[in-house]
């Protein structure tokens, strides 16, 4: 699988190599698409974070532009490109959700992000969405006619509960599917694996939708005045943006 050519000595190198096997100079990046193999990891979703970090540090130590200050222009460029790509790869794989998104992308599924923002409600959420919208309408109406903000806040909290429950339930499902993918990774048939990927993609779409609902509730809370003293981790912070995932080529 020789797909890289060393610009220094002309020798061929496997696509996942970082340095020329013949002259040991850093290789130009070429068109690499797989963060897992770039980091020397198998395409699995349950990752040892410690191992991932160590890989990242090791490779940073090999590629970083700091160490190519005196090198030739082409090596400096290669160092810059490899470092950038390494940083992208680490950022994407560190977060479980962006890791799944990257897996879906390299397995050839359309990005769940591309459907983000469309009005279509995922079937699994129809009931919750219907109920929530009804409640929100009532709360807004009451607010506009001068309802007591602490009562309204309580109602918002109550409306939020089933969504929170759904979200937790959902997270467990994503974890279970991720584990299933890892089990299937070596043995299962293509169709079985594809079914797992489709299910994962469905979950990510739902997840986006749930997060949007929670944001809507937060916005309503903010309209009611000073921030509620109850701190809810995970909703105000969208986490590391998985957006860059789609961009590595």
């Amino acid at each position, binding site marked *: 699988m020789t797909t890289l050519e060393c610009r220094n000595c002309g020798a061929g190198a496997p696509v996942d190599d970082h340095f020329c096997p013949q002259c040991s100079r850093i290789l130009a990046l070429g068109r690499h698409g797989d963060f897992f193999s770039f980091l020397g990891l198998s395409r699995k979703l349950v990752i040892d974070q410690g191992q991932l*970090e160590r890989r990242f*540090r090791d490779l*940073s*130590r090999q590629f*970083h*532009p*700091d*160490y190519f*200050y*005196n090198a030739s222009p082409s090596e400096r460029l290669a160092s*810059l*490109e490899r*470092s*950038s*790509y390494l*940083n*992208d790869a*680490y*950022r994407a794989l560190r977060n479980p959700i962006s890791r799944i998104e990257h897996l879906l992308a390299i397995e050839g599924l359309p990005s769940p992000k591309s459907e983000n923002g469309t009005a279509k409600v995922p079937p699994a959420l129809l009931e919750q969405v219907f109920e929530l919208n009804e409640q929100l309408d009532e709360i807004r109406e009451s607010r506009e006619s001068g309802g007591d903000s602490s009562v309204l806040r309580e109602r918002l909290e109550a409306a939020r509960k089933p969504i929170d429950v759904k979200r937790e339930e959902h997270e467990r499902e994503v974890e279970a599917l991720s584990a299933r993918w890892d089990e299937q990774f070596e043995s299962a048939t293509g169709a079985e694996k594809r079914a797992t990927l489709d299910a994962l993609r469905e979950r990510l779409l739902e997840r986006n939708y749930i997060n949007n609902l929670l944001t809507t509730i937060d916005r309503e809370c903010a309209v009611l005045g000073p921030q509620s003293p109850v701190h809810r981790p995970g909703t105000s*912070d969208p*986490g*590391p*943006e998985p*957006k*860059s995932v789609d*961009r590595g*080529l």
Partner: protein
Amino acid sequence: MGKVVGIDLGTTNSLVAYVHDGVPRVIRDGSGDGLVPSVVSLGEDGTFFVGREAQRRLLTAPSRTVYSVKRFMGRGIDDVRDDASLLPFRVGGEPGGVVRIGLADRELTPPEISAFVLRELKQRAEDHFQEQGEFDFEVDRAVITVPAYFNDAQRTATRDAGRLAGLEVLRIVNEPTAASLAYGLDRRDRGIIAVYDLGGGTFDISILKVEDGVFQVLATNGDTHLGGDDIDRLLVELVLAELPRQNDESKEQHDNDGSQKQDPSYADEAAGQVWSSSRADQGPGGAVGRVLFSRPADQIQAIRKAVIEAKFDLSDADETDIRVDALGYRRRITRTEFEQLIRPLVERTIQPVRQALADAGLEPSEVDEAVLVGGSTRVPLVRRLVSELFGRSPHSELNPDEVVALGAAVQADILISGRREMLLLDVTPLSLGIETMGGVVSKIIMRNSTIPASGREMFTTGVDNQTSVDIHVLQGERELAADCRSLARFKLRGIPPMPAGLPRIEVRFQIDANGILSVAASELRTSIAQTIEVKPSYGLTDQEVERMLIESFEHAQADVDARLLIEARNEAETVINATEKSLRRPDFADIAAADLQPGETERIEAALAALKQAMGREDRDLIRDETHALNHATQHLAEVMMNRGVREALAGKNVKDV
């Protein structure tokens, strides 16, 4: 190849350091002072003063003296209007362009002014290496630090300043990260470090994870407009409010914003003039539309000096006096009063700290060490606040003024030696995006992404046979382009004529290890690389930098001459003072009678008079020759004095011993 140094180019003070035998050291002047005030003053003869000399001129020539220029780096006139109204020098520029600072008949950009400070540091380092007997003492490369929260334009302006000073800028490094490197030298342990950096004009918070010698920044945040300067300004305003009104009656006509008073004799002395062509009522050259402060600039500077001294006192004392002798003003201020006054400012650092922790996904209790950097962290209220924020007392073993320069020197050493024990992985502080339909920003590289970082975006055309596309690049966290920082506008040209929507133009954004952006583009269907025309929104074009370089060479000889003259004068003054002190001794007549040769006193007096006369002229060589002559004439006297001193000291000792 010449020498490599690390430079902390600060708002108030700057420093230069280098690594010797693996240990970073600050380069100091003869009196052990490592700080070079970041002050530049245009002399009446057209030459420039830098550092301490320029700082003294804040009081005597305020309208010709620039300080805190770092606040203007990479900024436009609209960003700095508030600041400018309080400054004694003229600040102007075209709307949407770089700030220009007017000193007498010269008009300079912030990078040009910073270049003077950098040249002074370069000179200081070269003098040092020459004194050390180094054969190759020229300093030609440097690592320069910037606040972590500096945007692309501010970083680029700093790099331009380095170029203008004749330095190859090896790397732009973030100040808090540099500080962590300096700390990391001694403490090779692992853990989470928070660096709280409150300097003269900027605030940064960086959260780092240190492991196996890799210093990885997890998140950074800050405020490029918050620092000791703001504390000083509050105190100046306090004094101004308390000064009796009668003192400024004569200036009352200038009190109102937009006053059209044109008084050439006054104009040069007036504080806080802002000129800008954005004002509807201005003429060519933009010298109107002033916001005049109600007092002459020298008074403002005298007040500023007095409040800074009081501020320093209050780091240790519970109360002190603000004394402005020139205005007959004196006021007691307690630390409690001071803290009440500055609390709102200091509390503005809390939100960035919380945001950085949230971005790093950490709770305050997970921070293993908090480190204080920057002179303003000497304020006890700041220390208390940091202790409260992290629930632990912060580290400040290294001098908070010097730690950044030391770290810059370490990074410079890493770059040239290729040593791999330590590695710094920094992040970009602000998200990078492009303007899309409706003025909305589409983010391409998120904030706190480890750098180098890259991103791609696909573009196409909207009309048939369209051959160019305009792209507006922005930096910031807000959703609308209007609320973000405009970095540059690009025009993609040379797109092959095709039906609308068919071209697939890939634009690639690359942020390098300096945190500076570059852009490349190609049309994927035809693989034609596009040419990109860069128009930095608040920066200098390459051509402008080239032109300034040429101009600075033209001025360089005059500047060197001015500098040598100052040095000669300083040396002469030292010798004159020492000689006069000896001659004035009450026992001089006895000494002369006992130990000096006949006529020796007269020879000394003659040499002294000759040197004093030479001091009144601009001839450096004459001053130097007369200094040598006086030195020579007093050599014997100095020996006599020293021997007597030793004898007296020994005698004193004998008396005690007996």
